[in-house]
C-alpha cells in the first residue's frame, strides 16, 4: 500500500516556543488513523502544521506532492478537509450556507446539490434545522455540521481535531459510527486527534501516540489498545 | 432573533503589552532626563517653545495611551478634554486672576469629572461605536465653545488671550525657558504617577479589562468602575496638558481644538507604540515636526508627503517606537555579550 500522507521530521513553532520536535509518520490510503496524547502533546499543532496554519519546518507530502509551502486554502483545495477544534462553524450563517461553504471550491453545481441532500441523509438533524443560524445549534449538532461541511469538499483526506470534545458520550458514539461509515463507504482517509483514547482505538486501524512533540509509539490500533503498559503510561485508562 | 442574546466577543482592539515593557530602564531614563534638562540651555527661545509643546502633547498622548493601551478603550475625543483643560486655565487666569500654576490642578480635576461622566454612557459602547461617540464629542466641542451663552467667559469665536508667566523669584531665565522647566517638572511627575498607576492594583485591573473583559469581570474586577475611571484619569491628564498648552501658546480659541487635534493625538499614540508610555514623547515629536518637514519638502503636496511619511513609519515599524526600542535593546544586549 502506498502512503497518502507522508510527514518527515516535522518541527513547529509558536513564536520562540517549539511545539513539535521532529515528528515523522505516514497515513495509508483508506486508513483511519488516530493520533493520541495528553494535553499539550502537540496533537492539534500537528494537524495545523499539515494545513500550514503554524510556522513549521520538515517535509509534508500529500499523494507524492510536497505541500509544506502551500497556503492553507491551497492545501484544502488538494482535497484535505480539516475540522478544527471548536468546529469552526460560521455561526452567523444558516446551516445550509455552512454546507455550501464546504463546497465553495467545487464547480460542479448539480453534484453539490445532491451532496447536500446526502449530508441531510447522513445527519437528519441538520435537515430539520437547515434555515437556522448555525450558532443556535447544540454542540453535538454543530459537530455534525462541521463534519458534514468538511465532507462537502469531497475530501481525499479528512483531519479531525478532537471531535468528541464537549459532547455527551452517546453523541460521541453516534459521531464515531458515522466517521467509520464515511471511511469505509466514501473511501475517505481519516486522521483523528483524540483525547478519548479508548473510543478512538476502537474505531481506528492505525494509531500514533505522541508526547511533548515526539512520537513515542506507533502501530496497529488493536495492538496498542491491548498493550497494558502503553495504556497505563500514555493513555490513562 | 432567538433566545440567545448577543454576546459580542470582539477581537481585541489592542495587543497585550507586558507590564514591564511599558517603561524604560533606569539607565535610558536617566540619559533622556539629562538631555531634556540640558538642551534648552543650548538652543534658541523658539526651539525651547517647541520643546515645551513637545512635552505638552507628549502628556496628551500619554493620557490617551493610558486609556487605549491601558484599558483598551478607544477615543477620538481627546481634543475635547484638552479644550476643556485649556479653557479652564485660561478663564481662571484671565477672569479670576488666579495664579497659572494653581489653575492646572483645577483643570485636571474638572476634566477628570468630565471624562468620568462621559465614560458612564460610553460604557455601553465599544470598538467603532465608542470611536463614533468620542468623535461626536470632539466635533461638538468647538461649536459649544462658540455658543453665545458662554461668550462672556469664553470670548466666543475670538477666544481669550492668556498672559505668559515670568520666571519667579527673579530667576535669570526667559519666560520660555521658565515655562519649559515648569512643564518638564509636571510632565515627569505625571509620567511617574502614570507608571505607578499602571503597576498598581488599578493598573492590573485596567489591563485585565483590556485583555479580556469577560474574564476580568469573572475575576471580580469591577469593569464598569475601572473603565469609567480610566476615562476620568485620561481626561484629567489631558486637561492638565490643555491648561499648560493654553499658557504656552498664550491663546485659546475654539478652532484650536478641532477633531484634527484628536486625530493628531491618536497618530502620536500609534507612532509611539500603543501601550508604551515612553513612546508618547516620540509620538508627540512626530505630530509636531513631521507636518513641518512635509511642508518643507513640498508646499503643494504637504498632505501627501505627510501621508507617505506616515505610511513609511507604519510599514517599517507597525508597532511604533516601542518596536524600535525593543530591537535596540536586543542589539545592545548582544553587543554587551560579545
Amino acid at each position, binding site marked *: 500500500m502506498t502512503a497518502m500522507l507522508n510527514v518527515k521530521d516535522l518541527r513547529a513553532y509558536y513564536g520562540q516556543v517549539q511545539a513539535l520536535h521532529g515528528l515523522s509518520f505516514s497515513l495509508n490510503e483508506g486508513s483511519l488513523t488516530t493520533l493520541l496524547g495528553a494535553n499539550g502533546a502537540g496533537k492539534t499543532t500537528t494537524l495545523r502544521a499539515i494545513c500550514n496554519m503554524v510556522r513549521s519546518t520538515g517535509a509534508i507530502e500529500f499523494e507524492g506532492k510536497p505541500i509544506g509551502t502551500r497556503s492553507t486554502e491551497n492545501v484544502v483545495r488538494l482535497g484535505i478537509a480539516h475540522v478544527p477544534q471548536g468546529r469552526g462553524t460560521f455561526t452567523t450563517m444558516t446551516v445550509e450556507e455552512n454546507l455550501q*461553504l464546504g463546497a465553495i471550491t467545487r464547480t460542479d453545481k448539480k453534484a453539490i446539490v445532491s451532496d447536500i441532500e446526502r449530508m441531510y441523509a447522513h445527519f437528519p438533524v441538520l435537515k430539520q434545522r437547515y434555515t437556522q443560524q448555525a450558532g443556535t445549534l447544540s454542540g453535538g449538532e454543530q459537530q455534525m455540521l462541521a463534519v458534514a461541511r468538511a465532507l462537502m469538499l469531497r475530501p481525499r483526506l479528512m483531519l479531525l481535531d478532537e471531535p468528541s470534545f464537549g459532547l455527551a458520550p452517546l453523541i460521541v458514539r453516534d459521531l464515531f459510527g458515522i466517521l467509520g461509515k464515511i471511511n469505509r463507504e466514501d473511501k475517505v482517509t481519516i486522521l483523528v486527534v483524540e483525547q478519548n483514547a479508548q473510543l478512538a482505538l476502537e474505531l481506528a486501524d492505525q494509531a500514533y501516540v505522541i508526547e511533548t512533540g515526539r512520537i513515542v509509539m506507533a502501530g496497529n490500533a488493536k495492538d496498542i489498545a491491548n498493550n497494558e503498559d502503553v495504556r497505563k503510561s500514555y493513555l490513562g485508562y | 432573533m432567538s433566545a440567545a442574546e448577543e454576546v459580542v466577543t470582539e477581537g481585541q482592539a489592542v495587543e497585550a503589552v507586558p507590564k514591564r515593557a511599558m517603561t524604560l530602564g533606569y539607565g535610558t531614563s536617566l540619559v533622556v532626563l539629562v538631555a531634556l534638562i540640558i538642551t534648552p540651555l543650548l538652543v534658541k527661545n523658539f526651539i525651547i517653545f517647541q520643546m515645551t509643546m513637545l512635552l505638552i502633547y507628549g502628556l496628551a498622548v500619554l493620557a490617551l495611551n493610558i486609556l487605549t493601551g491601558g484599558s483598551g478603550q478607544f477615543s477620538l475625543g481627546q481634543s475635547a478634554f484638552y479644550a476643556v483643560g485649556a479653557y479652564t486655565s485660561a478663564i481662571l487666569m484671565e477672569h479670576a486672576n488666579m495664579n497659572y500654576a494653581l489653575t492646572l490642578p483645577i483643570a485636571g480635576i474638572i476634566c477628570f469629572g468630565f471624562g468620568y461622566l462621559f465614560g458612564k454612557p460610553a460604557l455601553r459602547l465599544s470598538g467603532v461605536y465608542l470611536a463614533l461617540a468620542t468623535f461626536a464629542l470632539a466635533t461638538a466641542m468647538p461649536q459649544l465653545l462658540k455658543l453665545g451663552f458662554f461668550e462672556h467667559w469664553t470670548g466666543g469665536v475670538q477666544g481669550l488671550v492668556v498672559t505668559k508667566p515670568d520666571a519667579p523669584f527673579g530667576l535669570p531665565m526667559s519666560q520660555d525657558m521658565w515655562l519649559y522647566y515648569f512643564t518638564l517638572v509636571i510632565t515627569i511627575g505625571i509620567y511617574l504617577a502614570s507608571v505607578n498607576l499602571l503597576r498598581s492594583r488599578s493598573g492590573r485591573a485596567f489591563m485585565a479589562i483590556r485583555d479580556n473583559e469577560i474574564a476580568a469581570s469573572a475575576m471580580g474586577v469591577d469593569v464598569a468602575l475601572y473603565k469609567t475611571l480610566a476615562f476620568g484619569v485620561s481626561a484629567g491628564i489631558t486637561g492638565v496638558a490643555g491648561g499648560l498648552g493654553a499658557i504656552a501658546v498664550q491663546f485659546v480659541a475654539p478652532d484650536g481644538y478641532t477633531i484634527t487635534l484628536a486625530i493628531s493625538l491618536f497618530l502620536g499614540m500609534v507612532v509611539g507604540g500603543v501601550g508604551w508610555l515612553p513612546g508618547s514623547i516620540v509620538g508627540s515629536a512626530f505630530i509636531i515636526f513631521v507636518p513641518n518637514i512635509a511642508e518643507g519638502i513640498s508646499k503643494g*503636496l504637504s498632505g*501627501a508627503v505627510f501621508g507617505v511619511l506616515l505610511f513609511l513609519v507604519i510599514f517599517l515599524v507597525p508597532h511604533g517606537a516601542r518596536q524600535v526600542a525593543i530591537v535596540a535593546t536586543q542589539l545592545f544586549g548582544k553587543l554587551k555579550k560579545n
Partner: protein
Amino acid sequence: MELFVNQVLAGVATGAIYACMALAVVMIYQAIDHLNFAQGEMAMFSTFISWQLMQWGVPYWGSFVLTVGFSFVAGIAIERLLFKPLAKAPILTNVAGFIALYAIINSVAGLIWDFTIKQYPTPFGSSPFLGSQLISTHQAGMIGLTILMLVLLFFFFRFTRVGLAMRAAASLPESARLVGINTSWMIALGWGMAAAIGSVAGMMIAPVVFLEPNMMLGVLIYGFAAAVLGGLTSPFGAVVGGFLVGVFENLVGTYIPGVGNELKLPIALALIITVLVVKPAGLFGRPIIKRV
C-alpha cells in the same frame, strides 16, 4: 403639520446622500471589519476622474461606467499595495494607515484639480419631482439608484458563491481558509466593491454639494453615523440609517430653537449615540450569537 411633512421630505432628500455613502461604508466594514476613514476621499477622487472624462468629451453614462470600473480596480490596487502588508499589524496601525491615505488622496486631488468649486452634472435633471419643491428629480433619481444598489448587493451576498465566500471570509477568516477560500483576495475584492459603490455615491452627491477636494468631509461623517445607526452589519440598515440621519438633522434644525447649521451635526451625532446606548448593535445590526 405641513411644515413637518415638508421637513421630513427635505430630510429624506439629504438623507439619500448619507444613505449612499453609508452603503459604501458598510461594504468595506463587511470586508475588513473596520471603518475606512479615507473612503470619502476615494469617492471624491473617483468623482474627479469622471469629471475629467466628461471634460475630455466622454458622455455622462460612459464616464459613469468607466469611473466605476476604475474605482473597482483602484480599490483593489490600494489594498494590495498598502494594506495587505499591514494585515498582521495591530488594528490601530491600520487606522493610522487610513488617515495617511486620506491625507495623500486629498492633497493629490488638490494639486491636480485645485480647490475651486466645480459644477457637476446630473443625469436626472433638477426640476421639481412630482411637483414638490423639496425633492428634485436628481434627488429622486439618487434615492432610486441607492435602492437599486442595495437590492443588487443583497442578491450578490445572498445568492452568489463569491458573495457567500466574502461573508465567510469576513466573519471567520481561519475557518474560511479551511474550506479553501482565499481570504486575502476576498478582502481585496471588498475594497474594490466599496470603492466602486463609493464612486457612485460621489457622482450622485457631487451635483448637490459641488465638486471639490473637501466635498466628502462632512458627508463621510454622516455616512459613518448612518451606518453605525443602522447597524454596521446590515446594508439595508445603513440605507435606512442614512435617511433617518437626514430627517433627524432637518427636524433638529427646524424645531429646536437656537440650533444653527453649526450645531446640527453635534446634535444629530448626540441623538445617534443616545440610540446606540440603548441599542448598541444599531437598529438593524445582526445580533451576533456566540458561545463564550
